[in-house]
């Protein structure tokens, strides 16, 4: 019997609120099946099963907020015999679903950029602070269960368990997301020794090829420069491995698959970077279709749990109307992020002569615990190389 737990959907998540069960006891599930919908600071996320078997019992109640790692359901693997003696421990778990789980990988940072007057000396997570403000609770009256007694979101929810609250307004939602981003990025900058390299790349061939290709295609088959850059980055990452993977308790583990997180800006502020699985293996057309799909679902607030947690490298582009360059902050547990300025006509030297050519400046922020500038330069050069043969992408 395996317990199905609240997954960590990124470095900035501490808890999620169960809003929908898509399975019931007796249902067979396989890996990747969507079993529940959980509301997080990044919108509603569809939670996929990573177990195969039959749903034995649902432990979490609708509307309940559970910390990362808390058991949500029990899943009996195929062929496993139902053991009556398991009844008691299951009941115990069901009775205390908000107990902090021992496996929670993230704990909350006692950092808040938006401390309220009078409460700023109290250690509390940004999400807990925001929620307490929403509920009109005084943080000083709450008991914290986080590190050094810090108040975490679950403590605030526990203080007001039965009171139904209206769905938060979009502004509140965005403010919460901003707090979550702030906490994750502060942690990244504190723990990861970032180094940066940047390179301006001639896009003449890529943009000429793209215009010609798109002119012959109906809108639904057209490809954007963002997809071309993504494919070149994914291919380069499959060759220069120290930028692709996760840094965990045992140090860096390179990943063979390239699951490229693509940053999508949300209107009014906020950002999500869902992963495109195996981006290096997808054809450019398939990669473009996948990017369209995640963008649409990010806008509608319906991303999947695997997309929120499995990225091995992130790409963030400023799009068509930005500025020359941007330096990123690495999203833990990843070890690198590539950012692109806006592609635009730029003065380049080609064969000793000055030419105006379409170009883009890519900047790599990478983790010095894993690699150094020389490796970073090799990675950006590999991206440049792929962009010179766009027909092979």
């Amino acid at each position, binding site marked *: 019997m395996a317990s199905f737990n609240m997954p960590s959907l990124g470095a900035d998540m501490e808890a999620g609120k169960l809003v929908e069960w898509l399975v019931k006891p007796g249902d067979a599930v396989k890996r990747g099946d969507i079993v529940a919908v959980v509301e997080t600071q990044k919108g509603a996320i569809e939670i996929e099963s990573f177990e195969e078997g039959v749903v034995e019992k649902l432990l979490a109640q609708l509307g309940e907020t559970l910390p990362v790692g808390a058991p949500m359901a029990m899943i009996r693997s195929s062929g496993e015999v139902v053991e009556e003696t398991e009844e008691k421990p299951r009941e115990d778990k069901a009775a205390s679903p908000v107990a902090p789980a021992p496996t929670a990988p993230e704990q909350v940072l006692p950092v808040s950029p938006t401390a309220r007057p009078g409460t700023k000396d109290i250690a509390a997570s940004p999400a807990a602070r925001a929620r307490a403000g929403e509920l009109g609770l005084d943080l000083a009256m709450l008991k914290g269960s986080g590190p050094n007694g810090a108040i975490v979101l679950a403590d605030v929810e526990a203080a007001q368990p039965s009171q139904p609250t209206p769905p938060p307004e979009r502004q509140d939602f965005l403010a919460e997301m901003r707090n979550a981003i702030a906490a994750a990025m502060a942690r990244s900058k504190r723990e990861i020794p970032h180094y940066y390299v940047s390179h301006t790349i001639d896009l003449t061939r890529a943009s000429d090829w793209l215009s010609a290709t798109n002119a012959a295609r109906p809108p639904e088959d057209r490809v954007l420069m963002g997809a071309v850059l993504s494919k070149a980055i994914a291919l380069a990452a499959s060759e220069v491995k120290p930028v692709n993977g996760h840094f965990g308790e045992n140090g860096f583990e390179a990943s063979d698959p390239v699951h490229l997180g693509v940053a*999508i800006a949300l209107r009014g502020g906020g950002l999500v970077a869902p992963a495109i699985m195996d981006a290096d293996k997808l054809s450019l057309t398939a990669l473009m279709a996948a990017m369209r799909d995640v*963008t649409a679902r990010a806008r509608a607030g319906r991303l999947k749990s695997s997309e929120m947690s499995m990225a091995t490298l992130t790409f963030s582009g400023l799009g068509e109307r930005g500025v020359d360059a941007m330096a990123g902050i690495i999203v833990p547990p990843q070890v690198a992020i590539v950012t692109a300025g806006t592609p635009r006509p730029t003065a380049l030297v080609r064969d000793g002569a000055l030419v105006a050519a379409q170009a883009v400046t890519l900047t790599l922020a990478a983790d010095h615990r894993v690699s150094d500038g020389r490796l970073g330069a090799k990675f950006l050069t590999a991206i440049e190389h792929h962009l010179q043969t766009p027909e092979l992408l």
Partner: protein
Amino acid sequence: MTEDDIRRAYLEDLIRVAPDLDPAEISGADHLQDDLELDSMDVLNLVIALSKRFSIEIPEVDYPQIATLDLAAAYIAAQI
């Protein structure tokens, strides 16, 4: 199809692409990218929706002509 019908259809497709926009707050001169903060992926999704709905070709070079509600209404009316 009247221009009002076209404008209504454009807004409908725009909201489907960007569900967090409020149709009541979109003016005819609002630019998709500069004012409504659509990115190039959203613009492409809108182009796809409009080209299907009206059965028209919208080549990439014409994208600036659908960049506001006012521009798009005139452009689409001329195409259908």
